[in-house]
């Protein structure tokens, strides 16, 4: 199967997908997706980013979604880290949290380590893998004219939701987020528990 070359610039995606972020909880993986998520939220109290533990974003988001069922939770990650622990999509599908969305910024390469090609630039289809895992709602976003529908999908489609965003291999936002995981844990936790 040949797919059209990606056209979306990742730096223009998250702010369009999440026009309102205040009531949501965000978990991001590492590298580019963490930078983009930190830019979206100004590294705020409702975001936990990683700079290691590759593949942990989906199960961490699942843990948040199960433990805080009254809140909407979004995972922002990349194709490489998602594939590293792809089985976690089955775990999400089985638990079926209605309040969880997974957004995968799929640039088809390992941008953080030099742009080496990844499986999705070959034959691997993440949306089909998510469907095969049993995720309730799955969508692929690859053109500008699908953006509003994708934002609506993240609000209205039955959860859990998986949105594959096909983006070019261009750079993420150059945002410098906090790299101290203990600080980030305390910041997120205190904000959440203080708010309840």
């Amino acid at each position, binding site marked *: 199967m040949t797919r059209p070359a990606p056209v979306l610039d990742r730096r223009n995606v998250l702010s369009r997908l999440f026009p309102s972020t205040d009531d949501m*909880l965000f*978990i991001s993986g590492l590298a580019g997706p963490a930078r983009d998520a930190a830019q979206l939220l100004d590294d705020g109290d409702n975001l*936990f980013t990683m700079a*290691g*533990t*590759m*593949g*942990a*974003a*989906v*199960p*961490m*988001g*699942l*843990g*948040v*979604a*199960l*433990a*805080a069922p009254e*809140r909407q939770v979004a995972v922002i990650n990349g194709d490489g880290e998602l594939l590293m*622990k792809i*089985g*976690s999509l*089955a*775990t999400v599908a*089985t*638990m079926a949290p209605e309040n969880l969305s997974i957004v995968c910024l799929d640039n088809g390469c390992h941008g953080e380590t030099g742009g080496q090609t990844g499986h999705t630039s070959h034959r691997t289809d993440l949306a089909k893998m998510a469907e095969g895992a049993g995720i309730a709602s799955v969508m692929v976003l690859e053109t500008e004219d699908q953006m509003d529908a994708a934002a609506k999908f993240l609000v209205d489609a039955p959860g859990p939701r998986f949105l594959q965003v096909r983006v070019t291999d261009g750079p993420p936002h150059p945002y410098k987020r906090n790299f101290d*995981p*203990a600080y*980030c*844990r*305390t910041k*997120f*936790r205190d904000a*959440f*528990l203080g708010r309840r």
Partner: protein
Amino acid sequence: MSTEPRDSWSSELFDLLVGAGITLFPYVPDAGNKRLIELAAAHNESRPVLLSSEEEGVAICAGADLVGQRGVLCMQSSGLGNCTNFLSFVKGGGFPILMLVTMRGDYGEGNPWQYPMGQAVEPILHTMGVLTYRVETKEDLLPAAEAAITSSGNGRQAAALILSQRFLGAKAF
């Protein structure tokens, strides 16, 4: 039903865990945690989470901690090897991960495939900054479980309760 020794200690351990406010039970199935997970499924305040691989459970418990909830990752010792990288949440982040490790490759093991990982469990946990509480006899169980729950109860420290094959009984080959 409740004639096996595993049924009675599983029940006592489950009561202790739920009493400590532990609500999520991410697990990869093992003979040693079978009854405990059945109890978690039957109780209205606890929830088992079937994993595809053990390290997911480390991240799930870390996610639950971010919103003030607690979980216990239940797995066979072989699965601890899958968790190593994700245990970076412990030393780096101070996430209070609690684990229940049911041993293979331990006292009386008859399967040589199980020994390499079984014997590496405690060194790996210690290297990654996790306290270990080993259970050899029935009398050890509740005090060790309580110590593990307490040490991981207030953040910063992770703990593993290790149920040895001397306690569990070795699988026959």
